[in-house]
């Protein structure tokens, strides 16, 4: 048993050493395509052995014939999952970010440039625990969508771990698989805090203003376009010179904006708890359609609202390095 573990560790290390992360899409090449019998395959071999012993005992040539036919079929069937996988192109799309504690679903796109259809393609982290329920087919010359689940993680930015694309089709006796190490990343936002801490009030010297009035009076500076910015706020005049879209921002009196501020959450000593609280507020503000700004150590995002702004803020929370 110990030897087995050691051997499998060595094998894993060898595999890892062969796989430098690549940007998607990748094509499964011959040297990266492994094959081993499945549990069902071993069961089948056991059954064949029983059949063979029976045939020998009775010296029964038709029993020999069937045993040999099945043995030959299972050997031939070794080629099929291999061919089923070889040359398949795997593309990982944008992995949707999740909140900490939620499972991550990795979207996959298979492209079959081969001349034969491919069946029952599986993907997952552990090749021994691939669910046939999520298998997809990919016809010749077409693409197919699939996905697989990653276990929930804590807040942060993660490199997509090495995963397996595999198939056991047609007989399930052998599994052919390839390890894919891709450069794709995914974000895990902080877990939204559950406490009833109220959103900090809009600090204003002139009384409370409704947040819907974004400061559009005093032009301040240009910043890069971000998806979700209103078309009319784009500064078209600067486009021909710079070649990039810029957005006009307007100075807004600091005291009139709703700021979600890391530094004000002094009573929460755990940085992750602060981030959770900020996350909760961002979600609440979005739900209440209030504009908000975000201040983190070294980061400041001007108040706004909308999907892009929310994503931007949450991403900053996810990427924040604390404790340094």
């Amino acid at each position: 048993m110990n030897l087995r573990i050691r051997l499998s560790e060595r094998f894993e290390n060898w595999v890892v050493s062969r796989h430098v992360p690549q940007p998607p899409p990748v094509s499964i090449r011959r040297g990266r395509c492994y094959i081993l019998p499945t549990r069902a395959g071993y069961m089948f071999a056991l059954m064949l052995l029983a059949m063979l012993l029976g045939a020998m005992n009775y010296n029964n040539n038709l029993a020999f014939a069937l045993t040999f036919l099945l043995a030959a079929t299972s050997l031939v069937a070794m080629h099929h999952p291999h061919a089923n996988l070889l040359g398949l192109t795997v593309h990982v799309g944008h992995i949707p970010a999740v909140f900490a504690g939620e499972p991550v679903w990795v979207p996959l796109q298979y492209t079959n440039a081969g001349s034969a259809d491919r069946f029952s393609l599986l993907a997952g982290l552990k090749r021994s625990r691939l669910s046939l329920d999520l298998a997809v087919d990919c016809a010749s010359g077409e693409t197919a969508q699939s996905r697989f689940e990653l276990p929930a993680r804590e807040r942060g930015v993660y490199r997509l771990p090495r995963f397996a694309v595999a198939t056991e089709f047609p007989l399930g006796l052998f599994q052919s698989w390839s390890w894919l190490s891709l450069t794709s990343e995914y974000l895990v936002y902080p877990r939204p805090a559950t406490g009833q801490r109220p959103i900090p009030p809009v600090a204003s010297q002139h009384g409370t203003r409704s947040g819907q009035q974004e400061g559009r009076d005093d032009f301040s500076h240009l910043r890069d376009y971000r998806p979700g910015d209103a078309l009319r706020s784009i500064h078209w005049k600067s486009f021909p010179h710079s070649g990039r879209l810029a957005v006009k921002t307007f100075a807004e009196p600091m005291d009139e904006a709703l700021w979600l501020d890391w530094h004000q959450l002094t009573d929460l000593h755990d940085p992750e708890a602060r981030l959770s609280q900020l996350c909760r507020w961002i979600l609440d503000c979005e739900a209440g359609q209030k504009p908000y700004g975000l201040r983190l150590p070294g980061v400041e995002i001007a108040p706004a609202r909308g999907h892009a702004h929310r994503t931007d803020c949450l991403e900053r929370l996810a990427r924040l390095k604390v404790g340094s």
Partner: protein
Amino acid sequence: MSTAVMTDHLPAANVQRILTVLMLISAPHFARLPLWASLLVIGICAWRWQAAQRTWAMPPRLLRSVLAIAGFAGVYAQFGTLNGHYAGVALLVLMLAMKLTEMTRRRDYLLVIYLSYFLLITHFLFSQEMLMLPVLFLGALAITMVLIDVNHPHSLLPARQTLRLSARLLLQALPLMLVFFVLFPRIPGPLWGFPSDAGAGVTGLSDSMEPGAISSLSQSDAVAFRVRFSGPAPPRRDLYWRGPVFEYFNGRAWLPGAWAEVPRPVTVSQQGPAIDYEIQMEPHGHKWVLPLDLPIGPWPADVAMGPDLVVRQRRNIIEKQLFQLRSILDYQADVKLPLSVRQRNLLLPALANPRTRALAQSWRDQLGDDRRIIQAALSLFRNEAFSYTLRPPRLLDDQPIDQFLFSTRAGFCEHYASSFAYLMRAADIPARVVTGYQGAEANGDYHIVRQFDAHAWTEVWLPGEGWVRVDPTAAVATERIELGLGGALPSGESLPALARMNRDALINLRLRWDQVNALWNRWVLAYGPELQQRFLGAIGLPGLRALLLSLTFGTVLLLLIIGIMVNRGHRALAQRDPILKEWQRFVRKLNKAGLQALPQEGPRDLSRRVSADRPEWASAVEPIARLYIRLRYASQKPDPQLFARLRQRVRRFPKLPNESPTSHPAAR
């Protein structure tokens, strides 16, 4: 897992396919199963069919256990054993059906499918006729289909597609199977012995002879064995196929003597030429081989001749087997008979059949000489009103020989052999009864011996001559020996069609079919350790080492070839499509130059982007994209000239084709 609320992991149609295949595979067994078992199996399948359709829950575990125990008990009650072909198959079919009531998970389906393969193999315990070959392939095809289905659970593949996949797998496996069949080392079986009922239900000689034993065989035209002589066949009257010999008479039945098989030296001296021949034995469930009287060595493996001159194999013959044998027609055997054996062959039950004893004693007194006594007995049969019939009057138990010799005088060969041996023993001549077959029918280049050729004769021991065959039936009905059963029996007695003298076209057809079967038996069914060695010797691969080497080499070679074939099917489209190939070459060149083609980008988009990024390449890129689009999408049949231009431009890229016109002529 003990809860009863489990529903299927597979779509209903998938489960129903498994059930259909299961019914097909078990259907031939229904004739062998007790009726209740067949009905139970059909019932469970029908219920499971509905359960799949209506997503019923599986029955609770208690009910399943009760059902399983009841099944075991039922089989045991029916057969009195769980060990045996019939009981085993009944058990297998029942357990398979019960497994259906808890079949919800993938591994349950797999188990059911694997057991179906097992069920398929059990058919061959009962029959290995040539017609079972399609059963083998169609069965394997159907089961493999559902195995493919189980590995494609998320959506049901069309039946035609799984059929095609399954057929392709089996076809690819076929050459490999042949290699295994021929080269896999065969060892003489059995490994652990046979169940008690192995070979049951076959007709043939039995290990005792009582009145009616052989006449019952005469109703069967089943093949007992087939013979192929290396030289010309001996005449029909010499074709005595020697089977079990009986030395002990209990007053009614002849039985093998208790000491018959105890080894003792037996001398056989040869006179006349040897006859070589091959026997394709049909299974009869006993040990004896039926050689031409009298066989001499060399014996096949596991075969030996006993002191009673009966040739036996170490194990029962329950499968078709092939024997290479040698016999002589003229022989002297056992000339120095030990006293104990002599006495054994003179033994008669005391007191019974006084008239017969008196007759024999009078012959001994008047004639004295053994030969003349034998002649007297034969002329009794020949000259008195003895008749040869399949329907003799019933003999009473207490004085059967007296009754036959002096009153009924009608009987079949066993009556004549039995009473003749009795007469001889009563006259102090050692005698015994031999059963076997007499005659054979030529069919093509071989002879068929059928069950209705079964016969009984006697052997008497004469000083200086050893055992001498005497066939009293020949005295009564010479035609039996010269022409066979059909010629000897009075018309009106019921006979199998093939035994009759007048033949019709249908019978000729049956004989043709038998020729095909004989080939099947000879080359496929009889292939075993011996034939394998002969075959390998003939092709120059003697010995286990050469066998294993050629097996390994053949397997690896075939797997390689099949691997190449399978991968060809999956070869990239580009390799079959020269236009796409050129385009991909172009894209690779761009890649090397640091311009990644994006997956969503068509040729037009790509060329635009490249031209924007590298204006100096614009004049090279745009024609390539244009040519590619025209070739690919404009017409069904691409213009070869356009293709040549595309090819030239791609190969020269990023240079333009006319930049160095000297290096490549325009003919390209």
